[in-house]
Structures are given as C-alpha cells and as structure tokens.
C-alpha cells in the first residue's frame, strides 16, 4: 500500500517537474524587441483604402486630425498597438504582434475589448464588465464597425439590406441573436420599432446596467413611464399589478392581442380575479364582458384613478 502511494506521488511530482520544464522553456523563449510607435502616416502607406475609410469616422476625425492627448495622437496604433515590429517584418495579417479585431482575429476577445475600454469605460459603458454580453464573450466589434462610417453609433452592417441611413440598423444588429424578440416586433400589436420610430436602446442599454433586463431605468415601470408619463401617477386608487410592473399585463415587444396585452381580455383579468364579481357565472359571447375591450369597457381607468369615486377604476 505504501509503495502504491509512493509511486503515485512520484508520478505526480514527475508530471509537475515536466510541466515546469516545459513552462520554463516556453517562457524563456527569446522575445522580440519591444515594438515602438511608427505613426499613422506609415500605416497609411500600405493601408491607404482602410485609412481613407477610417478618416471619415468620428473616431478617425478625432485621432487623425483633432487629437486631444498623447494617446489619441497615436492614431491607428492607439487601438492596434505599436507597429514597428509589424513594419519590420514586412507587414501581413497579424504579423508583429498587432492587436486585430473581429471574429477572425487570433487576439482574445478580452484583449480586444480592453483596448476599447481604455477610453470607453464610462457613461453608458460603465457596466460593460458586468453585462451579460461581456459575460458571453461578445466583442465590441460584434456590434460595432469602426473602420468605416456606418451609422451614428457605428453599428455593424448586417448584410446588404441595411436600409437607407441605417434607420433600422440597430434592430437588425440586435435581431441577429435575439431572434424571438425580433419576431415579436412583427406581431399585429407592436410598438413602432419596425417602422423605425423606436430602437432597442430606447429601453435597453446593451453595454450593461445595474437594472433588470439591461433596462436603462431602475425599474420596468420607470422605463415605461419615460414615454407613457400619464400613467406615472401616483393615483388615489392604485391597481397593484400596474403599480408593480407593466409587464404583469403587457408584453412590450409585441403580441397578437390588442394593446400589447399578454393574454386576451377577459382571460387576462380573470388570471387574478378568479372567484369574485363577474366571472362567477358563464356569459354569452355577445356579453359586454367579452366584446370590444371586455373588462375595460367599464373599468377604463385600470391603470389608476384619481377620482374620489374611482375605487373600481370606472371614474
């Protein structure tokens, strides 16, 4: 038994020593000389078309013509890193230790993103590191195109169908992954996203927030109140489900029921109001309990009433 234990220990130790030797050999490999900055004009000599496109972007205009500090003056190398080794090696994709971007890049996503976050870890990107998109290994360039002017937010082009002025570019970018949400926008009851009047970032911040569902406001209701200010109240008579969350009754991405309701009336109301008042007996289909707006035919102030006699949201 002791021999077995000793043999096992020997094997483990041997493995560890082997790894250490290999590791040392790797780490002790001769390193190339540290790269230095060569300037944007050197980059332009070989990458003229890319340089020309980049110079039309907001970032290009700042880096190349209106730099505010030493970092921005580095131009192309501000993001790609110092290029002397790349130049000395005669160029080539990924040669010389340059930081490259995109899904084909050998540079890890973390490194790519850290390059962007040097300047952009603030404002709406403050919570990027905690966002679900970062957690799932998305790169900034998954959604943004940097090397040519696309839309105001430099969103990635999705195929050749991106409409004039990229009005719907944002929905198309988000819709690449969020297929169900994208499909919901085409339901009969919807908000004007597919018409180009709203975009996903009117409610969500894809760079991360401390709020549920990456909402921009601190609660679902406060998000909805940004536009639907009339429902903000507070009211004398409060309907508790509406007070807690609009999504108790509404599906904001689109439904097949009127008014973005999750379930058609009166089924929606009877999910809670099961055993009191109206539903106690069967009703004919022509009943006011069913046709038109169903329950809200009478309870029209269902989001809340400020009328002293509005206890049942009818005044």
């Amino acid at each position, binding site marked *: 038994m002791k021999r077995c234990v000793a043999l096992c220990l020997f094997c483990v130790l041997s493995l560890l020593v082997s790894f250490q030797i290999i590791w040392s050999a790797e780490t002790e490999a001769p390193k190339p000389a540290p790269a230095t900055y060569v300037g944007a004009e050197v980059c332009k000599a070989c990458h003229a078309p890319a340089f020309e496109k980049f*110079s039309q972007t*907001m970032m290009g*205009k*700042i880096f*190349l*013509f*209106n730099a*505010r500090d030493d*970092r*921005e003056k580095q131009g192309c190398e501000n993001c790609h890193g110092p290029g002397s080794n790349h130049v000395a090696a005669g160029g080539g994709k990924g040669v010389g230790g340059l930081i490259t971007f995109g899904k084909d890049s050998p540079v890890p996503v*973390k490194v790519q993103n850290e390059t962007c976050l040097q300047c952009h*870890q*603030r*404002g709406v990107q*403050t*919570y990027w*590191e*905690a966002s679900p998109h*970062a*957690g799932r290994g998305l790169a900034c360039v998954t959604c943004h195109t940097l090397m040519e002017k696309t839309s*105001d937010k430099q969103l990635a082009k999705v195929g050749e169908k991106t409409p*004039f*002025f990229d009005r719907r570019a944002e929905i198309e970018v988000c819709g690449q992954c969020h297929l169900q949400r994208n499909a919901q926008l085409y339901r*009969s009851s919807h908000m*004007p996203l597919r*018409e180009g*009047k709203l975009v996903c970032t009117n409610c969500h911040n894809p760079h991360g927030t*401390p709020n549920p569902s990456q909402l921009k406001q*601190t*609660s679902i209701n406060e998000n909805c*109140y*940004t*536009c639907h*200010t*009339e*429902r*903000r*109240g*507070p*009211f*004398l008579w*409060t309907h508790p489900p509406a007070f807690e969350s609009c999504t108790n009754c509404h599906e904001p991405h689109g439904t097949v029921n009127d008014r973005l309701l999750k379930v058609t009336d009166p089924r929606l109301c009877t999910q809670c109001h099961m055993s009191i*008042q*109206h539903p106690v007996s069967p009703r004919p289909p*022509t009943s006011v309990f069913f046709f*038109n*707006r169903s329950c*809200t*035919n*009478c309870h*029209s*102030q269902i989001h809340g009433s*400020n*009328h*002293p*006699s*509005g206890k*049942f949201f*009818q*005044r």
Partner: protein
Amino acid sequence: MKQTRICFVISTSLVLFLFLISPAWAQIDVGDYTISGQAEIGGLPGTFKGDKAAFETYRDVPVGNVIVPQMQLMIGGKKEDFYLNFDSYKTGLNDQKYTLRAGRYGLLDMEFQWDQIPHWFSNDVARTPYSVNDGNTTFFTLSSKPTATTATTDSATSPIAQWLNANDHPLNLSLYNGIARFNVRYTPTPGWTFTGGYWQNHNVGSRAFGTLFGTSPGSFNITELAEPIDYQTYNIELGGEYAGNGWSVGLKYNGSIFNNLHSTIVWDNPLNLSNSNAAGVLAGPCVDAANYTNTSNGRDANRGPCQGRLDLYPNNQAHTITLSGAATLPNKSNFMGTMSYGWMLQDAPFLPFTINSAITQPTISRNSLGGDLRPFMINATLVNNFFENVNLKAFYRYYGLSNHSSQVSLPQGYVKLDSLAVPGALEPDLFAYSKNSVGY
C-alpha cells in the same frame, strides 16, 4: 407602332428610375468647406390607398404616385475640425423626421431632432351621436335622445338602435405624437464629459374608451366615447462625468413634467329622458335622479343622472438623481456601483364625488392626494476575470418604492357611477414595495 415602342421605353425607364435606383451620392468643394450628401426617392402605384391598411398603424403611406424623398446633407471644413449633418426622412408626410447634428470633433456635439409618429386606430369606423366641446373639461353633448328607454333590448329595430343610426356620425380614432429633442455633449478634456438634453413630447388625438351609468352587476349601460388626448411632456437631463485612469464617476439629473390638457370629461346620459319630448328632441333642462336601472322608462325615479363625469390622468412630475461609478481593481477585477433616488409627485385637485345633483356629496379628508412616490436604488457589482474564459460576478441590488403620499379618508363612502351613494368609511391603500437581490 414606333410611337408605342418609344412610349414603352420611356415609361419603363421612368419606372426603373423611380423604383430601382439606389441612393445617389455627391460631393463638392466650396471654398474651405466640403459639401456632400445623398438622396433617395421612391413612389407607390397610384391605385394603392394606404390609409385603410393595417400596416399603416404607425406610418403615413401616401395615396397615389407621391415621391418620398430621403436626404442626407453633410458639411465639413477642409481642416476636418467641425461637422454639420442634416438628415430628412419622409418630408411632408405625417411620419416625417429631421435631424440636425453639428459640432467640433472631440469637443462639442449638438443634435436637434424633430420626429412625428402617427398612430392610427381606425378610419371612419367608430361612430358616435355626441358632439364634442374641448377644453380642460371636455363635454360630450347630445342634440337629441332616444324616444324610449329599452336599454335591455339590443335588436336593430329597438328605438335606441334607430336613434343611434339616425344621429351618429363617423370619426377617426388616431394619435399624433410630435417629439422635439435637443442633446448636447461637451468634452473639454478627454477626462471630463458634460451632457445635457431636453425633449418635448406632444401627444394629441383620441381613442375609444368606455364609460357607464348604473351599477354593476345587472343594472348598467355602457357609453362608448372617444377619449380626448392632449398630453404635453417636458423632459430635461443634465449630467457630468469624470473618467481617470481606471476609474470613473458620474452624476446625472433627470426631470419630467407631464401636463394633461384634458383632465376631465363630462358626457350626457342618453337614457335620462327627463329633458326630451316624445320625439326625443331636447325640450328643457334635464333633471337628475339618485338611482338608475336599465329597465327605467327614462322619466321615472330610476332614470339616473343627466350626465356622467370622469377624471382622466392627472398632471404629474418626476425627478431623479443618479450617481454611478466604476473602478479597475487588482487581479483583473472591476467594481461598479450606482445609487439613484427619485420623486414621483402628483397633487392635482380631486373632482367632486359625483356630478349628480340628486346625490349628497360625501366628505373627503383632503382636496388633493399629495402623491409622493420615491424610488431608491443602490447597486454594487464586483467582476473578476483572473481566470481566462471564467467570468466571476457578484452583485447586490436594492430597489425600494416608498410611498410618502398623504393618507386620504372617505368617511362617508363614495358614489358609484354617478348613480348610487355607497356608504361606509374608506381609506385607499398606500402601496409600496422593495426588492433585495443578491447574485453571483
């Protein structure tokens, strides 16, 4: 034959020009400035009538061969120091949009935007016998009334149905939303960022909604009205942020004021016939009654009120202050935190319990709610990426919606549907809640 061929070629070319061209782009230099732009036009077949189509809910599809121009104009200095961009979309239509953006690269960015969003519910489908007099209180008045109260009869030959068919008129139900926005962003140094924004939203139109007389269950009649909507919302946002090497901190204020220009509606009860003659013509002042049944003959003691009165959404305002920050910590760790505190206020005067003069007004402890909700949120998040491809995250979040509204008492009860006094002391609940979330 030759003429026909020429005509065909010209018309085909025109169609191709209108429908198949892609946006045209041009650029010219004028002195020290470069002017560039692109434009696109399109058309629709003349027989198409868009305003009846369901897909026009939020759109304006023009009738006939109307050209829909879209244009983008960019002006920049040859020194590449400033820019001025102008975008227009669907000029002249109800869903038009204009954006003007100007600034100095890396220093100042200003944007002004005008956007219109139509929202069509129905065209000429809704019908009403009411005429509407707008104001802070909107009156829905009738020029005549049914000749008999057979409210429980719903056949097409009933007096009520005949009266409706003789007096109703079609109306459009739609909303029109006009939004003006102004945003400015000033970055005097790469570290400092100041932002400001103002946007105003005017939502006007009407949509269908129901009101009723009588008391449920069993004795009521629903009246369908076109709810008048004239909302004005004013929003302001001010913020400042400083980002150092590996850390940032920002402070932001948001304010929002909502005004409803139609805060009350009053509508005639079509089934109180005390002021109409046998032919249904209004002949004298209406007389309220303290009860209502749907089997009333319209003149008896159960005829109900002459009018109903309903309170629409009251004016309100909200203010929020948000402090947020982030810091890079050792061992590939990041900390992020936010604290937000707000006020949602509403103090519009209460309406009387009822417009029905035959019912004694109950008492109420206050003249307005003094509504005061205060959302508070605090969050702390720690992320560690020490191990490659392993994203460790821990967070704590508190959200509380506390209710500081005044407690209102209704010691003598309330009036149900302008028809019936309901005794019994009441105190509306002051709802509040909080949520604590911890996760990793």
